[in-house]
């Protein structure tokens, strides 16, 4: 399996050709940047070799109607076999607006007590691109799914906290919030950021600040689901990574602070079952944008040191998993996710 840096995405056909020549099965995704040696890299490839190719699917066309989506999720559910322990690793195209719905549909279909983890891939500029590939084809608007036999799952954490003040997404569809509290979404967002953080956001600097002031979907167990706004439409609608259900109660979250080790500590606390070395680590691109590259690399170094593992992986546009190990899988933003990625005794 190959994670290719966006900067080297043009080389994917060559990689495919070479794998075909060697008779190696290939699956992969394009990530904004790669992670290795506790640093982010704009170019290169992380390759993970499986002694036996896991059961897998590469599906596209998930941006179509509900029936096709249900059929796709049913196919993916078929990767797990009743009674089998393992982890379903999913890589979605980050441009899909309905990843959370896909996950819910998949969970309804799968009904098997397995672990879920994964990321969304693509360009950090959110330009559509065929970011998923196999040895034969390269697709967008799809998902790459692997069932990793005996894999114990992943550790996922974002460390974002829920503030007291709430707003409500009164009109939303997919990952687009049209209005908040019955007003244009951007107006409310700008006003909230100004009132809470004293920062004036304009259409021009929106992308620069969005990662610092993400929305959170409030959950009853107190851990919010982070939704980073990444684009602004002319009518004031906000586009997030991940869906916002209509009438969702949102909070303008306190992003993690630079220098904080809360997230790392929380991860280490839960990561005792991750025994392999190196571990696969995906770091949210939005989180890195908020913290900055050096602070993000510091956090990664701190995590690697605390776990006493090497970390390889890349920047992700969204993360799949549960804050609690073996818990209900959700589509997160701003999270760090670590897993063995099948690198276990089989």
């Amino acid at each position: 399996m190959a994670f290719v840096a966006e900067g080297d995405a043009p080389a994917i056909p060559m990689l495919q050709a070479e794998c075909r020549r060697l008779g190696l099965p290939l699956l992969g995704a394009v990530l904004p940047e790669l992670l290795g040696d506790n640093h982010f890299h704009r170019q290169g490839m992380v390759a993970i070799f499986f002694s036996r190719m896991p059961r897998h699917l590469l599906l596209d066309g998930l941006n179509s109607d509900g029936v096709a989506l249900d059929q796709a999720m049913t196919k993916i559910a078929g990767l797990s076999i009743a009674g089998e322990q393992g982890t379903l690793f999913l890589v979605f195209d980050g441009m899909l607006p309905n990843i959370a719905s896909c996950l819910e549909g998949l969970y309804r279909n799968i009904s098997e007590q397995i672990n879920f983890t994964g990321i969304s891939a693509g360009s950090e500029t959110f330009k559509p691109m065929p970011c998923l590939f196999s040895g034969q084809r390269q697709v967008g608007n799809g998902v790459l799914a692997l069932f990793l036999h005996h894999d114990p799952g992943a550790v996922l954490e974002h460390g974002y906290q829920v503030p007291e003040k709430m707003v409500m997404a009164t009109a939303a569809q997919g990952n687009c919030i049209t209005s908040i509290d019955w007003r244009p979404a951007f107006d409310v967002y700008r006003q909230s950021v100004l009132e809470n953080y004293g920062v004036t956001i304009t259409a021009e600097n929106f992308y620069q600040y969005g990662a610092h002031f993400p929305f959170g979907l409030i959950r009853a167990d107190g851990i919010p689901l982070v939704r980073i706004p990444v684009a602004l439409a002319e009518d004031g609608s906000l586009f997030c990574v991940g869906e916002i259900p209509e009438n969702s109660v949102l909070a303008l979250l306190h992003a993690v602070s630079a220098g904080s080790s809360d997230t790392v500590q929380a991860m280490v606390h839960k990561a005792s079952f991750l025994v392999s070395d190196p571990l696969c680590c995906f770091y949210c691109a939005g989180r890195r944008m908020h913290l900055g590259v050096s602070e993000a690399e510091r956090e990664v170094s701190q995590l690697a040191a605390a776990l006493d593992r090497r970390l390889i992986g890349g920047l992700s546009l969204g993360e799949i998993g549960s804050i609690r190990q073996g818990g209900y899988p959700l589509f997160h933003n701003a999270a760090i996710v670590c897993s063995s990625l099948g690198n276990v005794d089989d």
Partner: protein
Amino acid sequence: MTETNYLAVLYEMALLTSSEMDSDALIGKLLQRLLFHTGFPVGAYIEYDLQHTAAGAEVEARVVRVLGCNRLAALTGQVRSLPAGLASDKSGVVEDAPLLARVFETPDHSVMLRLSVPGCGGFFLFTSTMPDSTLHLVHLFTPVLNNFSRVLKMCRRYERQTELHLKSNFMLQSVLDTIPVRVYWKDLHGRYLGCNRLFARDAGLDDPARLQGLSAAEMPWQSLRQQFRDDDHAVVAEGKTILGKEYTLPVAGGRELTLTVNKVPLRDETGEVIGVLGAYDDISARKQMELQLIEARAAAEQANHAKSEFVSNMSHELRTPLNAIIGFSQLLEGNHEGNLTSSQLDEVSEIYHAGTHLLGLINQLLDLSKIEAGRIELSMEPVSVQDVINDCVALIRSLTAKRSIELQVMVQPDAGSVRADYMRLKQVVLNLLSNAIKYNNEQGQVVISCYRLPDDHLRIDVRDTGPGLSAAEQARLFKTFDRLGAENSGIEGTGIGLVLSKRLVELMGGVIGVTSAVGQGATFWVKLATAPGQGEARSFEGVTAAAGPQQVVSEIASTTPAVSEPGRPSVPGKSWRVLYIEDNPANLALVRAIISGQRKHLAFFEAISASAGLAQAKRHLPDLILTDINLPGTNGYQLLQQIRGIDGMEDVPVIAISANALDRDIRRGLDAGFFDYIVKPLNVATFLKAVDRAVLARTH
């Protein structure tokens, strides 16, 4: 979590619980949302009834929905016994891995969070590790689940009602679709509200539901739109009911249907008119059948007419030669010249009898033909059965003598009268007597008896001592031309007599039948209604006909060839002239022979055509004109008119002599002004009587 956070979650969950009317979908959505909010990986919705379970007892519970665990999902739909500690009306946490594993067969889950749904059951969330705190979750979801309980009950009630409604609708639609009548109903604005499948098909729709909302403007029967609108208006505005109105309706596919339309006001439960209910009955097939029947009847009538014409023509054609045969044989039998030997007279007699037999056959065929055509006319009147029997006995005596049959007549004194046609009843009785004699054993016995029945009927029995009839033979009786094998017996017969008798009796409202057994003779009987007020008693007569040398009796025997005494009108010095116009030389010769032989005082003139006849009439001014009807060129009726146009001939009697022997022919002739109408073949005596009467009338 702050208070605001809780309220936010409550708000979202409250919206969720009111977002679905489908109970299964609602349960599924809420279950998934509970997993979303709690992070528990596995959840189930389980229903149980605590109200009807004793405290501390196990609870019968049904697993309704499961998410996140295949093994638990396998229990979906099953009823499980839950220990009292698991099923409760209170929310709470159960941390008892062995118990959970035993009950739910999921060894991986040591912790269960029960979120009670009051009055319904609860959401059971499972996980393998104890969360930091579940107390706030229990409190948080309590109002949500209380609300969910009410919504779920409403959903279930709505689903039951919907199901009943659908079943009821389905049943109604099934009934409507099954009945062979087109049914629809419209609102007050003429918009269709519904219909059955037959109506939808006529409207060109494959599904009755597609008619809803359409108007008459969108139907194929545009030519009748205004009429339908007027009907609907009458039904809605005046509360009128339209029943059995016929329309020819153009329907989808270019077909046309003939329909009877019924329309009644459609009313709501308060009786207010809310539209029109219509039912169309397709009578196209019936109409088509009626048309075919009319055509068939016309064809049958035409065929019958043709047949009657044929029979009439044949009768005419057969009577014409018979006229010569019977007429001349009668003249010869009279032996007026005295030059015929006894042997020759016997031979002449054979010719005469063969001729009369043939004539009888023709007459019977004519009668049958008339009955079948429904053209026989009966003169129904009170008829004395005694008189009929007397007449018949008189006529049949010669036959009894010939076959040495003893004929006994036994008429009940108060037998009285029946309602019948005298001549036709006589024909029937004569036929039965004739058969009884013909098919009897030599020196056998025939008894004709008549007696009243208790039910105002009178029965005539004709009993013979013949060989009798088997059941099979009896079944073949009364069938045309079936002589039961007597064809080769040498006994004269046509196979028509009994058929004719049966038809005549039935036409007179009676019944004819037979009782017989092989070797025990047969009794043919006729049952007729007595004539009202005609039951006066007559003296009982028991007559035994003595055998004697009399003539063979047949229909024509009533006018036996016994030649009349020559009559001469008492006008001294008057020369009486008779003109006969006839194109058939044989007929001409016969009448010439009769007149010249037996009415020597009459001067006889003849003509072989109408024009020649007219010329003769002008020249001789005859006292009596005899004319054929079917003359070439000018028929007898035209000729009669022309004769009346000759000076001095205005009142001269003109007698028609024709082989057109149907009743209608005779009536027509008399109505046209003929003095008399004599049918061929001529009975010499009858003919001479008519001639004498005409001459006598001229004298006066």
